């Protein structure tokens, strides 16, 4: 340790400031440009894309979006994928939040035998990689008639989200004031009634946070969708993106449409990020334990 003897040349002292700025700007460009490129390319004609790949779109063409939305000879209407994704994400969240809310509340409030063991069990399920489940799931969901089914997907996604959502909900309910529910119980509410009418409405902030943590992975999930949704009509957006895969860029005449599909898949999550960036980043720090 020669902390005291560090004589620094005055010029050297200015270097850190400049390097920091340059590093940040360069990396910001590296991060943003490909995304910008995706959106810009999606509003160009194929001719423009090939002749001036880095030029600004001139004129702006939204017909790529119109074509993929309504469908063309090659692909089924993209609107169908969008609606499937929307239904599945929404349904998964409703099931997940309701089930995890009840369970988290039970673990936080109930002093029953098996409470600690159940929590340990949930922690263990966090460590299970989903790939291990995929083969038996394919046959099991088939037997239940839940393959190629929106409801089946909702159950699967809700289950995959349960362990860490329950753990976070429990942590939240531990700090939830007891007085509120106790007065509801005195008024003759059942436990369940108190939960639905008093606890849940007051906790909507926490419930919204849980929704925020879960939306992006459900919207983006590929592996289970790939295995469990093998019929055209039920497929989700990530499958549409993965499926619109050209053999080679040169032989394709639908370049703009490919970028339109990617953009449309990413757009809802970006809007969502614009709206809730604080909560999303905060939630990620917490959700990191998943």
């Amino acid at each position, binding site marked *: 340790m020669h902390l005291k003897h560090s004589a620094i040349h005055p010029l050297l002292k200015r270097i850190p400031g400049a390097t920091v700025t340059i*590093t940040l700007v360069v990396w910001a460009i*590296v991060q943003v440009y490909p995304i910008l490129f995706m959106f810009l390319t999606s509003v160009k004609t194929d001719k423009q894309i090939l002749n001036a790949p880095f030029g600004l779109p001139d004129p702006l063409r939204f017909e790529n979006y119109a074509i993929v939305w309504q469908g063309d000879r090659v692909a089924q209407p993209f609107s169908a994928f969008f609606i499937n994704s929307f239904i599945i994400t929404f349904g998964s969240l409703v099931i997940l939040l309701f089930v995890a809310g009840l369970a988290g509340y039970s673990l936080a409030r*109930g002093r029953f035998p098996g409470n600690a063991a159940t929590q340990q069990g949930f922690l263990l399920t966090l460590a299970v990689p989903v790939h291990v489940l995929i083969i038996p799931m394919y046959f*099991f969901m088939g037997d239940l008639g839940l393959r190629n089914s929106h409801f089946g997907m909702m159950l699967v996604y809700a289950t995959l989200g349960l362990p860490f959502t329950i753990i976070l909900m429990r942590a939240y309910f531990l700090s939830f004031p007891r007085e509120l529910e106790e007065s509801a119980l005195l008024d003759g509410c059942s436990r369940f009634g108190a939960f639905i009418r008093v606890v849940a409405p007051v906790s909507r902030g926490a419930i919204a946070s849980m929704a925020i943590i879960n939306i992006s992975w459900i919207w983006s999930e590929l*592996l289970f969708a790939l295995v469990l949704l093998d019929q055209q009509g039920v497929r989700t957006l990530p499958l549409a993106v993965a499926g619109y895969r050209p053999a080679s860029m040169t032989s394709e005449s639908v370049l703009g449409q490919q970028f339109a599909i990617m953009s449309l898949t*990413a757009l809802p999550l970006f809007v969502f990020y614009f709206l809730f960036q604080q909560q999303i980043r905060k939630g990620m*720090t917490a959700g*990191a334990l998943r």
Partner: protein
Amino acid sequence: MTFRRNLIWYLFLAPAVIMLLMFMAYPLIQSLELAFYEWNGLRPREYVALENFEDLFDDRFFWGALRHTLIFAVFSTLGTVGIGLLLAMAISRRVRGAALYRFIFYLPVMLPMAVTAALWVRMYEQNFGMLNVMLRSVGLAHLEGTWISSRETALGSVIAVAVWQFSGFPMIILLAGIENIPEDLHEAASLDGISEVQRIWYLTLPLIRPVLISIGVLQFIFSLKVFDLVWVMTLGGPAESTSVLGTFLYKEAFRKQEYGYASAVAVVMFAVIFTVTYVYQRLMRVESVEF
């Protein structure tokens, strides 16, 4: 009597437990069992004891997939956490536009991985892909690459995409760690007249070491599970040079209908990832979240 009093709590817990038993515990057990059978999904399954594992041991494609998975996990972890740390330290100096940088660096994390992969397939394309066109236009044509379409560069190119997408994630967490360091420590350090580099080396890094290790392990576990990126970008090719455990398992099961053999792969994956995660959970206390 206690049971009746507690009945309501068990009922509240029941849906979660039933769902986890049905869609997690049961498939898990099935998977462990199936690894000891040979089965093509149609004929009755046949018990083969450890044969699947013996075959795995002799399968150079399995070893390849395992090696690629580890290489992917190690380098994407080093890349994301390394860049994340640099960015976090840079932003924590209260640079102008810190909020904007934070916003931008997390943006790619929000992209669905299938979109990231599909986008980079187009970027890496040899003739018209953005990367090569850009290199050509700035006079660096000799650096033009074949990227994901040749065996030598494919895995590295996929790792680069993972680093591109996810470095914002460790950044956010490390930044929170750095900002938790009490202000007076920094002041004391600057009064002592030590340089920026020394302050980082002797003050910041030791103090955020727990966070650094924690996010490193998390990123490593996350990377071991890689599937989407590889599947959409290369399908494990060319010539299996980017094949990872996830894609190897998928192909054995759903392309070749070797469900028993694929389950043996699943068991290996489970053993590796479960052990790492479990040890991690024991070492770190799972923290609660603030709202």
